[in-house]
């Protein structure tokens, strides 16, 4: 691991350890969740099963469009800590992945073992949302990547159970291997029942963001 990668890991773990605070990558016991994301860096799908209220195991497939590399990994996620309040919830999740990365570009560098570690933290009320996540990805001969992102959200109204919940959000992400290392994405989140949909536009890299989560 390079010194810069170690620094990123240290920063991510530092935030984790200081218990500051994303989404809900672990569901209720016995629950399945489908998470699809598409942003300036990648398009991915994750299907996970929550073995317990604080641990899920899933299968992730991800296409890193810039490098034209695909990953297929097994991804466990652990809800390390949840804080409960009458008006808030805060979470710290640790995640990781192990699988195969395959170069799909003209360079045809073949496949290699890939692994990643990540931390996700969030704090949420009915009208405010703050989150942070970081991931370090090691792909052997296909290169290493790191990212971290913070998000702030505000709900203009509080919907009751089963109603449409709407959030205005702003995400700032940092990807060292991109020309525009830091980028800003305003987005809208729509949330109803077991389905969550997000649509945004990365104004730094002029690319759309489409995310979808469904629990069943």
């Amino acid at each position: 691991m390079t010194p810069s990668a170690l620094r990123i890991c240290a920063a991510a773990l530092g935030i984790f350890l200081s218990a500051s605070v994303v989404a809900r990558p672990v569901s209720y016991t016995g629950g399945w969740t489908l998470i699809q994301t598409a942003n300036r860096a990648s398009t991915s799908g994750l299907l996970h099963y929550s073995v317990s209220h604080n641990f899920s195991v899933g299968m992730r497939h991800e296409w890193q469009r810039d490098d034209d590399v695909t990953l297929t990994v097994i991804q466990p996620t652990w809800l390390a800590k949840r804080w409960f309040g009458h008006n808030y919830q805060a979470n710290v999740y640790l995640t990781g992945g192990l699988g195969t990365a395959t170069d799909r570009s003209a360079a045809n560098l073949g496949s290699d073992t890939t692994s990643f570690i990540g931390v996700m933290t969030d704090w949420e009320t009915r009208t405010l949302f703050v989150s942070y996540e970081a991931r370090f990805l090691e792909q052997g001969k296909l290169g290493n990547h790191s990212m971290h992102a913070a998000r702030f959200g505000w709900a203009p109204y509080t919907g009751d159970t089963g109603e449409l919940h709407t959030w205005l959000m702003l995400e700032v992400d940092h990807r060292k291997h991109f020309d525009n290392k830091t980028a800003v994405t305003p987005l809208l989140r729509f949330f109803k029942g077991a389905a969550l949909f997000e649509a945004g536009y990365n104004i730094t890299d002029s690319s759309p963001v489409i995310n979808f989560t469904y629990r069943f």
Partner: protein
Amino acid sequence: MKKILLILSAALISVPGAADDNATMMPHHAGGDMAHGEMNHDHSAQHEHAINDANNSAMMSAPALTKTDEISAALANGGAPVVVDVLGVVCDFCAVAMNKIFGKRDEVSALYVDLNKKTLSLVVHKGASLSDQDIEILAKKAGYRIAAIRRDAAAMGG
């Protein structure tokens, strides 16, 4: 790869209380509105009166059962009302989780998660029982923590 695993292991080991997340789940007095008779604590009579007074006062303003068509029908069939104050209920995913977990139980004839009141309203089938401990365990499976449980008249806001 070895370095990654090493860092991850070190982080897991060094997180205070991480391994027993939610282990101490039910702060019976949290919110001050748990019906006192449901506790097994050994209080003096004077203390008991003071607590009961506080609880009675709290129950006066505690959220009552949320009535949906399904809940009203279950009550009409002789079901017993239960209101559970739930901590950390902030979004529809929370409601989905509790609906899935509690909805599987045969004892439960109707339920509704009220995000505004932050309560889980249950109706237990006539003749069936669902203990506080059962509710606590089910809430934990859903990923949440309970602050208080009210039954019968207290659940109806009485």
